[in-house]
């Protein structure tokens, strides 16, 4: 990358993330079963990315996964693949790596190994690194829980309910997590992203 300026990571706004997700999810009905998006088949089948194993990645490098853009490979810790209880985390993690592939390819261009990728990553400031992680997390959430589908599902669940209890968000998040096959925390965070924490204020007398 000698002589080439590495672009600084920027924070994507929510509408930009939603736009990217909407564009990526266009004509992808075949990858949905109900609300569940088969992200693994989508990124390997439609986008030709390869999921590879990096043994003891978490233990040795304190990360669950990383993407090497040049080789079109997502490397994942073996535990994340083998442990059934981590399946939802696996789905979200490969979603995040796919997000890097979509929106951070210029930021990580030319990084052909984990070491080179880490060197690049840590050359950015703390706030820039936060941008990178937040963008990826938000886009993964938008892909696994598409805005329109979440809104439809929430309006179905709220149908007939006139007053909201204090734990309404948690109740919704539990159902969203189940239907979209993601962790509760991811579902709750997605509802917050979509503004439900403000839209569904509990009725307090």
């Amino acid at each position, binding site marked *: 990358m000698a002589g080439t300026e590495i672009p600084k990571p920027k924070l994507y706004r929510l509408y930009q993330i939603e736009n990217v997700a909407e564009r990526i999810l266009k004509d992808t009905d075949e990858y949905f079963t109900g609300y569940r998006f*088969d992200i*693994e*088949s989508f990124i*390997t*089948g439609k986008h030709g990315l*390869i*999921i*590879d*194993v990096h*043994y003891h990645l978490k233990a040795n490098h304190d990360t669950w996964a990383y993407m090497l853009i040049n080789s079109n*490979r997502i490397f*994942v810790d*073996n535990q994340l*693949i*083998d442990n*059934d209880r981590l*399946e939802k985390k696996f789905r979200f993690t490969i979603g995040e790596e796919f997000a890097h592939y979509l929106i951070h390819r210029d930021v990580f261009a030319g990084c052909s190994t984990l070491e080179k990728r880490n060197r690049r990553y840590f050359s950015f400031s703390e706030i820039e690194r936060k941008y990178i992680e937040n963008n990826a997390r938000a886009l993964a959430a938008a892909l696994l829980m598409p805005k329109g589908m979440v809104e439809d599902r929430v309006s179905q669940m709220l149908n007939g309910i006139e007053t909201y209890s204090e734990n309404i968000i948690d109740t919704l998040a539990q159902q969203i997590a189940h239907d979209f096959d993601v962790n509760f925390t991811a579902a709750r965070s997605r509802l917050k992203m979509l503004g439900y924490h403000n839209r569904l204020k509990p009725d307090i007398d």
Partner: protein
Amino acid sequence: MGGKAIPKTFESFLREKRLKKKIGLREFARLIGMQPSNYCSIESGSLQAPPEDKLRNISKALRLTVDEERTLFDLAAETKDDIPTDIKQLIKKDSFIPALLRTVEDEEVGAD
């Protein structure tokens, strides 16, 4: 451009067939009796092809045709720089085959 595409590698053949059947990595690994991370390493080309019993399981799980199964065995052998297992078995089964192969070799050398 109507010709049938020839798969280049064992792993790309495997991936293509698995994706066509819409079976996830973990589920497929379980179907063929392998640890998902091991299967993943094979499909990504980091590990060589599995032994024959696993190849048979793969063929069964993917419901490969006879021709496809032969391709699977041929490509698997390539990853190990070896002779396909089914050919090895044929050679072992019939003492006439080594003689036949030597005759063909001799004739080819003679023709040169």
